[in-house]
């Protein structure tokens, strides 16, 4: 007779996690992270300081993980409303693949690790800015603004706009007006980008009880605000050239891209309130993504080309 009897818990009754590594990767919001990586990279390369490639890669990696951590914290907190929207119902937490506690722990550990890594290995000002960005996105935007005011993505947009400043700080150890202009481009781009989405997803946001602009102020008011912000984005997009940070080629591209932004916003402005398909809003949403990528890519290209031409022997 055995002194110890073993009773096996089977069929998942043990409560062991069924989350795969892919589920945890999805918590990092990889698509948002790719935009963060790109804009942080532009800020880092545009800075007037030569950075060792290893330090540059470490900085970008830390910023990417920090952005991912804030995404995980967002998915932990928002699981209840994510479950109510078709666009987000398949996310790991509302779908039941990752437990809320796992997502919270994952987000907190990565937040601390990314900030410490950026501080110890690269620069403490950049690390402080990264910590503030994570706090702003996870606490100020997710926990406070998102469910409280239709200005949620206007103010919350600051979180997505910080990466170029963090990249710049990682390279220089300081912040100047130039990365602040890059911040402003993303900050002012955010409302028309998300309100275009909110227009054709208004039903879903309404079901989840999120006070997006179309649900609170109405479709007509949102269309007018989108147009107003688009005009400002088009002007701010040209500022880097107007202030002499980049050449005329960038200025020409920025004017053309800005004109395109205003054109698509104009079509949204002219869109009927009762339009069931909202094709102009969908087109503006798609164009806004192209705009941000193109304007930062042009900015980067200008900096890299000018620097290459200034090298001795060229």
């Amino acid at each position, binding site marked *: 007779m055995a002194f110890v009897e073993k009773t096996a818990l089977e069929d*998942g009754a043990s409560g062991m996690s069924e989350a795969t*590594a892919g589920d945890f990767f999805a918590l990092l919001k990889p698509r948002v992270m790719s935009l963060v990586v790109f804009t942080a990279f532009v800020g880092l390369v545009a800075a007037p300081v030569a950075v060792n490639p290893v330090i540059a890669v470490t900085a970008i990696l830390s910023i990417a993980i920090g952005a991912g951590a804030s995404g995980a914290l967002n998915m932990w907190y928002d699981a209840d409303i994510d479950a109510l929207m078709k666009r987000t119902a398949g996310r790991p937490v509302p779908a039941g693949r990752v437990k809320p506690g796992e997502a919270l722990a994952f987000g907190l550990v990565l937040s601390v690790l990314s900030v410490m890594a950026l501080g110890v290995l690269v620069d403490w000002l950049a690390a402080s800015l990264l910590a503030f960005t994570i706090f702003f996105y996870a606490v100020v935007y997710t926990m406070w603004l998102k469910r409280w005011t239709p200005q949620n993505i206007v103010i919350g947009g600051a979180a997505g706009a910080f990466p170029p400043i963090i990249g710049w700080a990682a390279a220089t150890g300081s912040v100047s007006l130039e990365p602040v202009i890059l911040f402003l481009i993303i900050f002012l781009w955010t409302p028309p980008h998300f309100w275009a989405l909110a227009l054709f997803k208004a039903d879903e946001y309404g079901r989840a009880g999120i006070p997006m602009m179309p649900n609170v102020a109405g479709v007509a008011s949102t269309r007018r605000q989108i147009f107003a912000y688009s005009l400002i984005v088009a002007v701010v997009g040209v500022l880097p050239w107007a202030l002499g940070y980049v050449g005329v080629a960038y200025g020409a591209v920025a004017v053309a891209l800005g004109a395109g932004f205003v054109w698509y916003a104009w079509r949204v402005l002219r869109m009927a309130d009762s339009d069931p398909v909202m094709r102009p809003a969908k087109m503006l949403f798609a164009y806004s993504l192209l705009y941000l990528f193109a304007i930062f890519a042009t900015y980067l290209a200008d900096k890299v080309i000018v620097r290459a031409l200034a090298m001795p022997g060229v």
Partner: protein
Amino acid sequence: MQIETVKPTEVQIKARRSRSIAIALALVAFVVVVYVVSIVRLGPAVIDRSF
């Protein structure tokens, strides 16, 4: 005396293996990054010191 043991399902075993591999790769990557950055930051000075 009775001890409760856990007998994971196939899905749980597969998921745990996937997580374990990811954690292992992340740890190796972290060690490599810290090592390489230390060399880059300290350079030759890493061995140029008094004992």
